[in-house]
């Protein structure tokens, strides 16, 4: 999976608890279909993030009487998201500067 997956999931969960299918849908909506993940790959990533204490999960009965696993961001997950945001911002700025043509000094 791309390096962006974890910060994106953290960012989505920072808005409130959510379940797998919904997370995928949000990713697709927000990116306008540009981030197209294979849905199945989300779950191992979620498991891994849970192992790393970034998120926790809980089975809850949703309205349709089908139990769903809801994921919540942990404190550590929040911190991780902050540091990710900083580094992504840095990367972004660097890229923007590099992408602009260098003025000629003649």
């Amino acid at each position, binding site marked *: 999976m791309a390096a962006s997956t974890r910060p994106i999931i953290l960012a989505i969960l920072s808005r409130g608890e959510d379940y797998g299918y919904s997370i995928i849908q949000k990713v697709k909506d927000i990116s306008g279909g540009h981030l197209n993940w294979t*849905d199945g790959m989300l779950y*191992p990533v979620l*498991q891994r993030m849970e*192992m790393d204490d970034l998120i926790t999960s809980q089975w809850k009965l949703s309205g349709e009487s089908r139990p769903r696993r809801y994921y919540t961001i942990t404190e550590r997950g929040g911190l991780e998201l902050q540091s990710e945001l900083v580094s992504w911002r840095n990367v972004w700025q660097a890229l923007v500067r590099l992408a602009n043509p260098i003025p000629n000094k003649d």
Partner: protein
Amino acid sequence: MFDLEKEIRKWKRSLQKYEVLEEGLIADIELHLRDAYNAQIKAGHTEKDAFRQAVAQVGTAESIAVEYNKNRLIMLNRRSPLRPGRFMPALVWNYMKTALRVIRRHKGYSFINVSGLAIGLTVCMLIVLWVVDEWSFDRFNANADRIYRIYRDESATQADSTSVLTPPPLAEALKKDFPEIIKASRFGSWQGRLVTYKEKSFNETKFMHVDPDFFSMFSFPLVKGDPDTVFSNPYSVVLTEKTASRYFGEENPIGKMLTVNNTFNVAVTGIIQNESLNSSLEFDLLSPFVILLKEFIGEDNADNWGFNSFGTYVMLEKSVSAEKLNQKLPGYIKKYNDEDTDELVLQPLTDIHLFSNLGHDLRNRGDVKYVWIFSALAVFVLIIACINFMNLTTARSSNRAKEVGLRKVVGAGRSQLIRQFFGESILIAFFALVIALFLLEYLLPFFNTLSGKQLSLSWWNNPTLLLGFIGLALVTGILSGIYPALFLSAFQPIRILKGTMRSSGANPLFRKTLVIFQFALSVFLIIGTLIISRQLSYMRNIDLGFNKEHIIHLSIHGELHDKYESIRQRFLQNPDVLHVTASMALPTNIQSSPGTPMWEGRPPDAKMEIKADFVDYDYIETFEIPLVEGRSFSREYSTDLETAFMVNEEAVRRMGLEKPVVGRRFGFWNIDGQIIGIMKDAHFQILHHKIEPLVFKMFPGWLRRMYVKFRSENIAGTLASLEKTWDKMNLGYPFEYRFLDEDFHNLYESEATLGKIFQSFAALAVFISCLGLFSLASFIAEQRTKEIGIRKVLGSSTAGIVGLLNQEFLKCIAAANLIAWPVAYFAMRAWLQKFAYRTDIEIWIFFLAGAVGLMVALLTVSLQTFRAARANPVASLKHE
């Protein structure tokens, strides 16, 4: 019609193939799939299309599994505190407690389990001891890998003929001619000896002669005397400890004089401790070979290259390969004796006991085939015991199912459960080992009588053996635990705890297969036992063609040989004595051969190996050998002593002589004589061999055994009066005799031992199988208690229910017979090939074995089923 649930189930199965995708994870993904499907339906796709799209969206099972696997690898390397540890001492204690509790709660089953395994282990250990003993022969010699025996390959004169007997000058000559041979010794004897010390005298049959090199080649430990000097005086003797105590009791034997054959003395110079040594070379007394030449065969025979009567052993230089030396040996004898076409071959010392099948070989030999057969039997018996264990444990698995379910729910992984069940079976195997060691202690003396060995069980001070036994128990535990462990640990907790699991125990087909295998083995052993004992009784009761009954024989060695004629006369005065005669070899096994004889009209290149014996007058009459033509040796013809030969029908056939044969010229060595009579073919050899050409010749100087034939009435009285006559003659030798028919029986001792051992094993195998069958039957009866109750309420009779319950077992037994019969047939046919004269393998043997197996099984099973069928249905149904 599209069936969503069916498709989802199919899709789930593709995920379940991956072990890493546990149920909970699959549930997550399944929900996702359903959501995706619903979304596709909402978007207006058909059901089938929607599902296809949803599956594609979720991705392939493999790619998901790969990701999860990565997580698992990370997890294995850093375990969170909530995950079970790899080793938890607290749980081990719990396992022990559970195991002991299971054993205690089901005493009957546990007893059968443990005792079955214990018997299996005991048999296995007995055989291990026996096999180790057989392999250990001659290996105690430090130079065992450098010592070789020389044997003669006589195939130039007769196909496949060999002999371990070599001439006296060979040992010295080899040492001189081949620098690779650094030591050599002859080993041999000549006639029995009467050895006297003060008033004690014994006939010594194992008085052997060796060369001084003997003690530096072989590692027989001298407890008294110096191996370098014991033979510095030729008239010396080295005794084994046992022999020494026979003559001298507590006295110090060194320096004492023993008198041999009342003619010469030897001084005791050394004592050998060979009690616990397994050696193919057997002796009670050892003297220098020089004495044998001087006192018995004459010193002129020291260079006689035709005197093939002794063993020759050589020791090679350390780096020398025996194969290279073997290549130099062809043509060697010809150098010294140009008429001799035999070739010499080196045989490793360590091959003599198990791998040797040469002519005139030493008596104390084993056979590697029996080692394999018994090892296979040991493994079989152990397998049967293990099968019982598997069968019982899996049959009773429903009793443990709840435990497995609960353990899994609280976090036990499959591997932990596997370890637990292995632990249990190993624990039981060790219980069995303890019992087996007690059994072994108790059974070893019986086994020793059976096998004719002196095995001792000093396992407590033999760490290798102890480790071996522990290893055996461990293997048994693992072997018997494999199936139950895999089977029980695979239970799905959800099915157990919901109660949807059928409590039928393991796969019934597997259980049946095990029962079939067990009984096939038992039936095989029964058939083997029957055929071996039939062959044995066939050999013992076959019409030999001569009469061996009511005949005793005595050794006439030393001075007795000269007094033979007067002894004969005195014995014949006894009215109960019918005949007295003598010969060189016992008629039970005539083996010596003068090579190809000369006969009238013999084609120049004709070859015929003929067996020969030297006999006295009345030999033919004593043994009642029927004549086909001519007459027997008679005192009325003065020429009989020198030139008369009697041959058997086979010799006549092989020489191609036309009748009348009597009067034809015949001879061997340099004796030119004629045939005076033709004997009907008779078995003068062990029945492994076909009847071969045979010739009898009179030769008073070579008579070594005297035979006395007496009336069948009052045998004890006749023997007593013969002994009185003997004592009156003051011969200086004890009256020691043996019955000829006993000797004949002893010829087949190895077959008899094999038969007895097979018998014991068959009995044990059947017993262990029945133990297993008994408990299995009781289990099945228990399982079907309610069914039986309902059947009875509906009017079934006890007999009908017994029949119903037995049916299943009967089918197994029938199948077992079908498997065992052909296997037994081919195995036993191969065994019977060893015998030139053998019984037929008759069909009734198979039916009998099958019937015995069936009856025993039926009886065992019925004990249980009858009880179950008799039970009052009220008792089994009132709780429903």
